[in-house]
């Protein structure tokens, strides 16, 4: 079943970042092989008279995917709001991946500034994808601010540590039953992505784990398959663990050899 994000339906449950690939051609190949329909991009100071940004923008447009601009590197609501407005100008989209970083080492979101920025952007017609912590109360505040998608981290950005707090992710899923939840940040390997999809998450946003792999395009495909496996497993209904053994072969009718 398609995933609907602010009125746009996508069938791929993988959102892919565009940073740190060995080359633009490998980025394009990773996007194609992952079958992702949404890529994240950034805005940075142009130094080549518009040519560097222009070439990159053309590459993204040629991929034919939805663009989710981010406010990466912003440390205050004010900075994030201005960056979002500049991104809307460039990409002609009301979507914005809202990042407001609060801590230098962990890149943990500053949730206070995040909620403030989400309120302002919501009132100005943006459709906000907030990169947030796995905190329920912050999630509630973001929804109250008008967000209709939440993107909790599972570990620090680029750390590849995988889900660090499964009970918190489970609580968010249970609490925000009808809100699309996308795990953003900290995924290192396909099995991490499967785990969060098995928990009932709607999608996974990745960058470094694919871009820094030995073969990024192959890893993009591996993640796509892992995400799909986790989602199918969730829908199929999984066996709950139990303390004792349970024989899988029927006991009745067994031969008797004495």
């Amino acid at each position: 079943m398609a995933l609907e994000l602010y009125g746009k339906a996508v069938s791929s449950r993988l959102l892919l970042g565009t940073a740190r690939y060995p080359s633009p051609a490998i980025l394009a190949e990773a996007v194609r092989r992952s079958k992702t329909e949404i890529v994240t991009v950034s805005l940075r100071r142009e130094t080549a008279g518009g040519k560097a940004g222009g070439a990159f923008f053309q590459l993204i447009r040629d991929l034919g995917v939805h663009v989710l601009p981010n406010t990466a590197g912003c440390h205050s609501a004010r900075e994030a709001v201005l960056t979002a407005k500049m991104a809307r100008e460039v990409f002609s989209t009301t979507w914005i991946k809202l990042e407001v970083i609060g801590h230098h080492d962990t890149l943990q979101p500053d949730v206070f500034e995040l909620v403030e920025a989400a309120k302002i952007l919501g009132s100005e017609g943006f459709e906000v994808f907030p990169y947030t912590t796995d905190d329920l109360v912050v999630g509630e505040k973001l929804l109250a601010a008008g967000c209709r998608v939440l993107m909790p981290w599972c570990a620090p950005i680029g750390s590849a540590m995988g889900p660090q707090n499964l009970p918190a992710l489970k609580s968010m899923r249970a609490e925000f039953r009808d809100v699309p939840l996308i795990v953003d940040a900290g995924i290192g390997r396909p099995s991490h992505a499967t785990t969060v999809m098995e928990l009932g998450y709607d999608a996974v946003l990745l960058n470094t784990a694919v871009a820094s792999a030995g073969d990024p395009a192959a890893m993009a495909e591996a993640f796509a398959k892992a995400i799909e496996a986790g989602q199918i497993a969730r829908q199929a209904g999984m066996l709950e663990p139990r303390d004792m053994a349970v024989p899988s072969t029927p006991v009745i009718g067994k031969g008797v050899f004495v």
Partner: protein
Amino acid sequence: MKLTVNGEALELDAGNLADLLAKLDYEGDWLATAVNGELVHREERSTHHLKEGDRIEILSPMQGG
């Protein structure tokens, strides 16, 4: 006129933001501009007059996650 463009100090005469972009050889529909922390829309650049000490940011699409 002293301006700061993308964090660099420049001594340059430009009547408005569109003039500045032309003088610095910036071109393309994908550029976003802000002056003193406020967005200046594409269509407002030619009427946005610059003054001494203005801080200008010129951003464009880049790789990001």
